[in-house]
Every structure is written in C-alpha cells, then in structure tokens.
C-alpha cells in the first residue's frame, strides 16, 4: 500500500461517496478505502475473499448486512458497481477487524513513514487517526505509541497559583535598552535588569545565582 493511498483514504470526506443511494449498509463505514485497496495484499494478506470474481450472488445481497456470514467484513450491494464503491471503516471497526485477523500482514505497513508523511503535509488530524489505527493494529510498538502520544491533545497536569504579574515595566525597559544588548539574552524584573548573557545557559546560571525568588522575564535581542 502506498503512502499516497493511505493519505488519500484518510482525507476523504466523512460523507459516504456512493454513486447510488441504494446501499444502506455502506453507511456503516466512515473511512474510505477503494476496492483497489481492498484487494491489496499489503492489507489483506493476499486473500481472495474480496476479489471481484468471488462476489456473493444477488439474492444474498438483498438480505442486508445483518445476514452477512461471520468474518465477512464488508457488506455488498449488488446494485452498485464494485469498481465505484468506497468502503468506510471506523477506528473501532478497524480494531475489530484487526482482531479477526484481516490485517494479517499489518507488520508490513510502514506506519511510521506514513504518519511522518501526513505530518509533513500538515494533515495532522489524519496522522492522529492513523496513529490510533496503527497502535490498535500493531500492538505495543513503542515508537507508534510515542507517535500517538505526540499527536494527542495536551494533557492537563495541574492548576497552580498565580505567579505572574503585569510585565509592562519590563517590556518598556526592554524597548528602552534594545540597542544596548544586541545579540544577547536579557533577564528583567520589576526592579530592572537582572542579568544578561550571550547564551541562554549563561543567563539561566546568572539568574539562579542573583535572585532566586524572582521569576524574571527573559528576552533575546537579535
């Protein structure tokens, strides 16, 4: 499966894209995978269960998705052209399918590279979804778990006391002295200059030794 296919599939609009309105069963699926991808050996391990030549007869299709045999992941609508159908799979369904062994060769999918490609294209939401799927499919892969963590929303750690104050004095001081400290880091508090240094490391060392109880505002002049 190529990166282009995955990127395209994850960025399909949520609404089902069917040429006909006769398939209620297809509404169950949210992520889009083309029939070409369904037959991809990379996803389904080369099994022929979904090949065009093995379609169910029409009389069977008419009974709806609830009558599908166990293990058949995708309901079929006989009135639709196979080549036009796009199936949609939710994250939960993807996990279920994984447990059923459909993604037998999931280890061959370069999830990390695909997620990186999505990030590079600013498709962060799709990357987040793929990371969820990848972790569900791959188990305890530490790198995928780390990626999922990085792509997740921030985690609240604590509420704390108010520790800041109006910094108008400091900003005015910085504006007044911007020519004096070109190329330097400057630490300023409500009492004026605390320290200045060429590197942040040196500045932090100076701040730590000068006034430990204050939290100065720091700024780096170009």
């Amino acid at each position, binding site marked *: 499966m190529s990166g282009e296919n995955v990127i395209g599939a994850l960025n399909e609009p949520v609404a089902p894209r069917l040429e006909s309105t006769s398939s209620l069963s297809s509404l169950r699926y949210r992520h889009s995978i083309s029939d070409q991808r369904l037959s991809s050996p990379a996803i389904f391990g080369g099994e022929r269960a979904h090949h065009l030549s093995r379609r169910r007869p029409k009389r069977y299709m008419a009974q709806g998705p609830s009558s599908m045999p166990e293990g058949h992941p995708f309901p079929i609508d006989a009135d639709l052209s196979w080549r036009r159908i796009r199936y949609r799979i939710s994250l939960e369904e993807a996990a279920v399918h994984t447990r059923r062994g459909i993604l037998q060769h999931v280890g061959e999918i370069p999830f990390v590279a695909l997620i990186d490609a999505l*990030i590079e294209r600013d498709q962060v939401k799709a990357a987040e979804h793929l990371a969820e799927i990848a972790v569900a499919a791959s188990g305890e892969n530490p790198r995928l778990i*780390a990626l999922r963590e990085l792509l997740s929303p921030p985690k609240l750690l604590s509420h704390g006391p108010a520790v800041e104050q109006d910094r108008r004095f400091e900003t005015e001081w910085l504006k007044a002295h911007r020519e004096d400290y070109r190329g330097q*880091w400057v630490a300023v508090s409500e009492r004026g200059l605390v320290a200045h240094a060429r590197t942040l490391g040196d500045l932090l060392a100076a*701040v730590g030794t000068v006034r430990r109880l204050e*939290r100065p505002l720091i700024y780096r002049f170009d």
Partner: protein
Amino acid sequence: MLHLAGEVFTKGGSRFEDTLPEGGEGSAKIFVKVIPGDLPVTIFAQLDTGAPWSIFDPEIAHALGVLDTEGEHVRIATRLGDKEGKLVRIRVTLPADVGLGVSLGFEATVFVTTDWPIGRNFIGYCGFVQGIRIALDPQNNVFYFGSY
C-alpha cells in the same frame, strides 16, 4: 474566571503584549507569557492558532534538555519554510497574573529544531491550543485560559 452559559469557561488570565520590545512586526500580534518546563523564567510566545505546531527556539529546547535527546524526527512546514526537527512532549505552564485566577500546567507537544531563530517562540494548534479553552480581551490585552 470567565463563564459561558453558566459554566466555568476559563480559570486564569494574563496580560499579553501585542508587539515585541524590538518592534519589527508589521501589525499587532499576541505574545503571551509562558513558562517552559521548570525553567525559573518567563518567556513571550506568539499565539498563532493558524500554525499547526508550537515551536520553541533551540536554546530554550536545549535548556529543557529535549534538543539533543532522542525524539520523533519530522519535517514540517513553517513560516520560515520547511524545517527538520523533532516533536517532543514537554511540560508548559500558562501562568496567571496575580488577581486573574490560577495558572494552568499541562503537557504539550512542541516542535524543536536547531534551524530556528533564537528567541522566536510560537504557540500553535496541535498538541497545545487544541486542548485548552482560550479567550481574548483585545481592548485590555488580557489572554484568558482554562481546561476542559
């Protein structure tokens, strides 16, 4: 503390600056106060909800110990072009000004790279703004924030 439809919306606030001490910005921006990690200092970071990622300058990242350690290497598009670096998860505090509620400490995702101007820090959407509630009072330069 702000309320929305009777519910608490934000619990803290701090005054923001709309220009840097050096100037140079074409128009007013929003520079909010941030405490990166456990550093004993406060920095200004530009709030940019249109940016996908938050970015801390390389010296801040080095001081936090995340620039030279292992991380997930990625390439992202920034206002300064495509940059290669790492996404890291670090503790960040949005400090409240005295009298404006409580500070908010959380673990956020930040992009760090050596290929970035020193002193330029940004707060972007993914891994940061997406998980907090914010409100602005532009007439009084107050940035309100809260958690879900």
